[in-house]
């Protein structure tokens, strides 16, 4: 099961990214556990400088802006 973390402090882009990732995972029938990481110390620890950021199984796959649908689909 993929462990996904959405990094962001609560602005609209972060919420949209969360919703998008959740929707695509559901469409593709991939088992995922999605967490929202909102505290800055943890976000900084990943080395992410622009939120929203997406971390899958410990690797940062995206940072900055809402990822395009194609990009999200390519992760599954």
């Amino acid at each position, binding site marked *: 099961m993929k462990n996904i973390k959405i990094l962001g402090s609560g602005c609209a882009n972060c919420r949209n990214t969360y919703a998008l990732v959740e929707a695509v995972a559901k469409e593709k029938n991939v088992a995922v556990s999605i967490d929202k990481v909102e505290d*800055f110390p943890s976000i*900084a620890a990943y080395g992410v*400088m*622009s939120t929203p*950021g997406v971390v899958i199984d410990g690797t940062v796959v995206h940072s900055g802006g809402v990822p395009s649908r194609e990009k999200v689909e390519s992760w599954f």
Partner: protein
Amino acid sequence: MSEVSVSPAQRTKSSVFGWTGVLVLASFAWIAIYSHLTDFADAVIGALGLTRNTRLGEAIHFFSYDTPKVLMLLIGIVFVMGIVQTFFVPERTRALLTGKRLGIGNVLAATLGIVTPFCSCSAVPLFIGFLSAGVPLGVTFSFLISAPMVNEVALVLLFGMFGWKVAGLYLALGLLVAIVSGLVIGALGMERHLEDWVRALQTGEAHPPNGVSMSWVERFESGWAHVRQIVGKVFPYLLAGIGLGAAIHGYVPEDFMASLMGHDAWWAVPVAVVLGVPMYSNAAGIVPVIEALIGKGAALGTVLAFMMAVIALSAPEMIILRKVLKPRLIAIFAGVVAAGILMVGYVFNAVF
């Protein structure tokens, strides 16, 4: 059903071609429409049976002229900036700033603040990312001050409403405030006023810059996405601002603002700055109001100082920064920037 298979290279080539064609056509249409905006506004009030001599007619004319004009400027410039920003992702900006000496670093940071994508919710991660890579505190602050204040929306709107001289001076003075404030803060040696967890931070492996290898189609798409995002976000503020501006334009008597915010009211600049700091808006909502105020006699420096204070310093931003900065540093940050903006206000009033 059989699929026609097109090689990725062919698909990309036709995409670039398609994009370029669309952009060329769009540019022509843009120029054609932009040069006929006054005619459009005249037509609107004509259709409503009004003339510009009445207050209502004047207000509606202002509204019909300004709304499409600002929208078009916004779309054009934000699209271009969206593309420019794909060349300057934060990771690259950080790499450019690491190890630069104080002085040069501040100038570079302030300049990069204009072209690096910056969303206020990323302010903290970005701040930390810079610091942990060894970018000096003062240099980081120069970036943090310039990025929200000297942004393309503000510059476009100022250009559209006041011409290139005002926009250019705003750009130059905005950079100056960012550079000098960053130098002052750096010189004060405020590192020990960072929150403890920030100073103790060991960041993970830096995420490699992902803007370097984008194709042109991806850059165009990114520009367009940027337009949709910014215009969508800004549009309600813009309408509200223009609406308010139109009301002022039509209904406030001439020179009314001169007594309150005019050249002779030297105390107007500090008051404008003090009023602006706790307020938060984006440039799009404020500039149309400013234009109307100036039309009624307010001094340019006073209203621009107000605008800078509103955009560059805001209560929400201070609250967010509180997570990484101790109160003393936040106070100094706000104080130094406010002082800079104050000086900008006086300079503008003196020059214009």
